[in-house]
């Protein structure tokens, strides 16, 4: 046998660099599912959990402490893979999306306004070197809407001294109207697995898929029953179908004759628009954006500028951090029509 053929390069992958928080993985799975146009196969997503300062140090180790000044080209997949799997290093050329998502974490003892700004200024293109999305004060900010629309989001801030994980998460939990809908598939999966004893992941996945694709209220119980009857015990079937029906009704997607995914797509579109307005508020002191001007406004946003303003407003313990989620901008960056359509 000849050995002319190389192994072949695996490409068209997505690198998602996060802090390893399960919720972030949920968020992106949801985004990829709600916006299938992004065409990211979840199996081709490589999730790397780290902290922004650890990542910064990894870059320094490879390219030197003056990498930002030298204008070196940073190959993040190379940096990450060299650390994780030195025998099988990857390259930027293998990834079509490099998404870096970190919390602002003003409270972090390693916090460095300069380092974080270096990163924000360099990582500006998802399809090239990668793009850094910093969430203020943390990832949960995408759920921090009390209503839809929520005009008060314009001035929503957190005191710099209280911008820690425990405090902010509790506050979001208390105020959000988004969390219930976001968590619906996870809760449903738990119900199917732990209470209805569907241990086979594939079977569970199929049930979940069919339930989340229900869009009408009429005959809902019958539809749920037909989905579950062959996979759950008869003794729990009746309870299960009413419980799931109630969950669906509470989530609200069938009221609008939508599947769960279409419903969530609409919610995410609203979340992105709220955050474009909020970013505009921080950068240009203008929250309201004329309909039809969102794209123009989005293209003028500068994440380094916003970061500098956040650094400034939160530098004293009496200061504040504007609540802002930028990682949902990934969708608008990919194709703005996904937000308007």
């Amino acid at each position, binding site marked *: 046998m000849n050995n002319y053929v190389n192994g072949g390069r695996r*490409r068209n992958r997505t690198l998602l660099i996060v802090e390893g928080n399960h919720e972030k993985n949920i968020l992106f799975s949801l985004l990829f599912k709600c916006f299938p146009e992004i065409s990211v196969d979840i199996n081709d997503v490589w999730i790397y959990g780290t902290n922004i300062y650890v990542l910064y140090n990894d870059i320094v180790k490879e390219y030197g402490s003056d990498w930002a000044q030298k204008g070196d080209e940073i190959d993040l997949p190379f940096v990450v893979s060299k650390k994780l799997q030195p025998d099988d290093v990857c390259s*930027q050329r*293998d990834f079509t999306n490099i998404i870096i998502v970190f919390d602002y974490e003003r409270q972090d003892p390693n916090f460095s306004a300069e380092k974080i700004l270096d990163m924000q200024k360099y990582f500006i293109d998802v*399809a090239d070197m990668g793009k850094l999305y910093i969430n203020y004060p943390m990832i949960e900010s995408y759920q921090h809407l009390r209503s839809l629309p929520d005009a008060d989001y314009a001035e929503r801030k957190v005191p710099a001294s209280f911008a820690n994980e425990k405090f902010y998460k509790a506050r979001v939990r208390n105020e959000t109207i988004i969390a219930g809908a976001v968590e619906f598939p996870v809760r449903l999966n738990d119900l199917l697995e732990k209470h209805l004893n569907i241990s086979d992941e594939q079977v569970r996945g199929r049930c979940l898929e069919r339930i989340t694709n229900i869009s009408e209220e009429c005959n809902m119980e019958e539809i749920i029953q037909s989905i579950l009857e062959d996979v759950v015990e008869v003794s729990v079937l009746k309870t299960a179908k009413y419980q799931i029906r109630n969950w669906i009704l509470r989530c609200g997607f069938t009221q609008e004759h939508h599947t769960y995914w279409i419903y969530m797509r609409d919610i995410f579109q609203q979340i992105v628009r709220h955050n474009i307005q909020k970013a505009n508020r921080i950068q240009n002191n203008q929250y309201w954006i004329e309909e039809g001007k969102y794209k123009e406004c989005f293209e003028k946003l500068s994440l380094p500028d916003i970061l500098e303003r956040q650094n400034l407003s939160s530098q004293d313990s009496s200061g504040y951090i504007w609540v802002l989620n930028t990682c949902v901008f990934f969708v608008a960056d990919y194709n703005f029509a996904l937000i308007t359509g």
Partner: protein
Amino acid sequence: MLKKFEVENYKNFKERICLDFSNTAEYQFSTDCITDGLISKMLIYGRNATGKTNLGNALMNICEILSYKMRYSDEGAFLNANSEADAAVFSYTFQFDEKEVIYSYSRLSNQELRDEKLIIDGITIFQCDFVSGNGNFENLKYIGAETVHIERYMQSIETEEKSEGTGKLELPFLRWLIGTVAFKNDSPVIKLADYVNRMVKITASHALFVGTRALSESFYVLLEKPGELGNLEEFLNIMGVECRLTLRKLPDGQRQLYFDYGKLIPFYENASSGTKALLVLYRRLITVMRDASFVYLDEFDAFYHYEMAENVIIFLKNKYPKCQIILTSHNTNLMTNRLMRPDCLFILSGQGTLTALCNATRRELREGHNLEKMYISGEFERYE
């Protein structure tokens, strides 16, 4: 200008492949790739053996149809080997001012036409079926050709049939019409003929086979004119080949081109492949096709340094703003919005599909995107 070209069942293109020059996006950069709303500078990429050269041959096929001078070219297999269809179908849509002219025909082989049709602004001017011998010529009045004697054309065809084996394509009606009728200069038929006359295909690899005497004497004669040698020298210098040239007439009357480094060094024996390729390009474009309407430059930068390849594109854009130029290349360095744009960069796939980068992804391609990196990392792999 050529607005759309379609071909089917020709060589490796079993299914219909379409080049739609009017399918432009609203990019506000590299606007010099667009002329009068149509793509005028196009760069095609594709893996080896996807048919880039065949596509050029397909586009140039109309030259065989309409030119009296051209004999059919023996390009090997003509029809697609996997298809059961008996003819290759060609369709050219032109836009001349406000008029849309569609000329289509199908060929059973290099020599045999199956049918031919001309449509102007939606009106079928004529239609010929060479297999059945039927035709529809009722609307010739729309092009001022109502007085032509169709019988004479029929006689011409019969004469052609008798002289089989001459290697000539049987006489297409449009070619006969152009040669017979005194059309006004602004006639769409004349514009079509003029456009086709000025179409050219250049293959860079031919430069490798250019020998010492390969440059025609007429080119040397042209270089003798005041300023012309300086123009060639300037062209080579702009492209990054720093040199001085001298043209000398030898005792036997023939001319010889030299590099002039104080001492004269014969050009062809010593020029690099890249420099020879540049000279071939210069000779074909600058002298033979000064007023080209359409140029297909196959693997145009096969011997060029990446900067030279960029320079050639910039030169072509500046020198031929109105000319429709299609370049094929493997040089991904040229896949940049600095030079081109996503609606003018195409991928030819092994399946015979031709897709502009902007249509090969759902991602909104912006000026700042690094298209080369995206291509290499597989952003457009579904269309490769």
